[in-house]
């Protein structure tokens, strides 16, 4: 199978170097080739798994439970200013 690695990498927001893309292309083809095995299985009328167990999602009262921890949670950020995350300019 031919996979456009650069296109997939762009969707994944990963900038691959040309040599990385060249190395990955045959590997991905070989992995997807193995995965094509799935087409041998007759899945007519079979429901896809949505959850490993047949259980209802738990519910909780709709109340605020978390204290404000903005400073602690922003501490690992590469750049913040006045409690806001700083990123390169988006709008010209």
């Amino acid at each position, binding site marked *: 199978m031919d996979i456009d690695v650069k296109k997939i990498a762009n969707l994944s*927001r990963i900038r691959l170097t040309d040599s990385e893309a060249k190395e990955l292309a045959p590997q991905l083809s070989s992995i997807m080739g193995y995965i094509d095995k799935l087409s041998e299985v007759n899945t007519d009328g079979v429901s896809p798994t949505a959850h490993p167990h047949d259980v209802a999602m738990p519910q909780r009262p709709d109340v605020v439970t978390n204290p404000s921890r903005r400073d602690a949670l922003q501490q*690992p950020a590469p750049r913040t200013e006045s409690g806001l995350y700083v990123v390169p300019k988006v709008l010209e």
Partner: protein
Amino acid sequence: MPFRSLSDIQTQLEAGQTTAVEVAQLYLDRIAAHNDDLNAFVFIDPEHVLAQAEASDAYRAEHAARPLEGLPIAVKDIFCTQNGPTRCCSNILEGFEAPYDAHVITRLKEAGAVLVGKTNMDEFAMGSSNETSAFGGCKNPWNTDCIPGGSSGGSAVAVAAGLTPAALGTDTGGSIRQPAALTGLVGLKPTYGRISRRGIIAFASSLDQAGPMTRTVKDAALLTSIMSGHDAGDATSVSDAPNFDWLKACEGRDMKGLRIGKPKEYFIDGMDEEVRAQVEAALKKCEELGAEIVDISLPHTEYAVAAYYVIAPSEASTNLSRYDAVRFGHRCDNPEDLEDMYARSRDEGFGEEVKRRILTGTFALSSGYYDAYYLKAQKVRTLISQDFKEAFEQVDVIATPTSPVPAFKTGEKTDDPLTMYLSDIFTIAVNLAGLPGLSQPCGFADNLPVGLQWIAPAWQEDKILAAASAYENATDWHTKSPVKFGGAA
């Protein structure tokens, strides 16, 4: 002395024969002596370890001991822990310190455990040999030319080499059971939903489950009993999960009346013949203990790896989108714009295997391919679950080899990702079906440990614990430890 179970240490602490500080110091000394060679730990803060041990001794002096009072436990680098870095062994989390503890870490602390340090792992738990770690691989103490398995390789090495009596791992496709098998330990992956995933760095959320890696079945039960239970912070942690007395479940001494399923798809051409022989011998032992071995079939087994390598990378590509260089993690120098910042930071931060999986998952989820891959894989997953349901109408538990081969040489499978993926051929179906699975030592092949895997219906870990305890009691494989590190083979 270092190759003791948690229960043995607990008995000595209770009898006043030792203190938590002495126990902690013994393992810190072991780590100082052997970690440079083995690379099992990626972070250790001896002062913090001793402070926890002192606090535990002080607590014991004033109160009744808590369930894990003073017991040292190492933690895979995938669990968020305060006091030090949490990296998931990835460069993208360079410098990251978690602002909170994972739910299971809070539970261990509240039970009096002493957390020893963070253990090596495959980057983001993506690997079966620990070789994708940003900190380099770690070595199997039974033969240091070999890998210890993965992704919880560092936890396996730390326990197997006597650097800690127990450790936590996580298991998405076999990452607790396979390294436990390859290093001669007990490793338990509980039923999906038994243990909260909050604060455990996500790989594939419908498959990930935390669990213990220990020297004995009872130790695995003890830790799981503390780790498990509903947590409102993880919507998939089940609130009314069937429960039982975990330690009592380990009192099994025979297997009278137990029906053990032996699936023909797990005894196949191409597997290591010595591994097959050891597992066959283990099943003979079970028969002597009163079990009946029933030949069964799990017909969709051969599609489990293919389904897994659609589902797990798809979920990973979504989960790992959070590494955007905005809220945490590595940011590239001088980004030209936002796009450049995302794409370059992620290229620099992620290792090769992680990129491979993100790309595989993105491809499988991309427009025009979703039905053929993701939806198809989820349907095959349903069939795999049904295979188990039908089998459990005939048998109580299923027994298989954990891995088709013993530990392989470092570098042997790194060139071909697909060969590496096939290492997990006997563990993956259990994750897809959300079932509990346990690996325990059952012999040696080429002087390397072999694992016996037990599988039970959802929420019936007690059946696994009873069978594995009876087997453990009747054999002495769990008492072996690597001579090179002061053990007794």
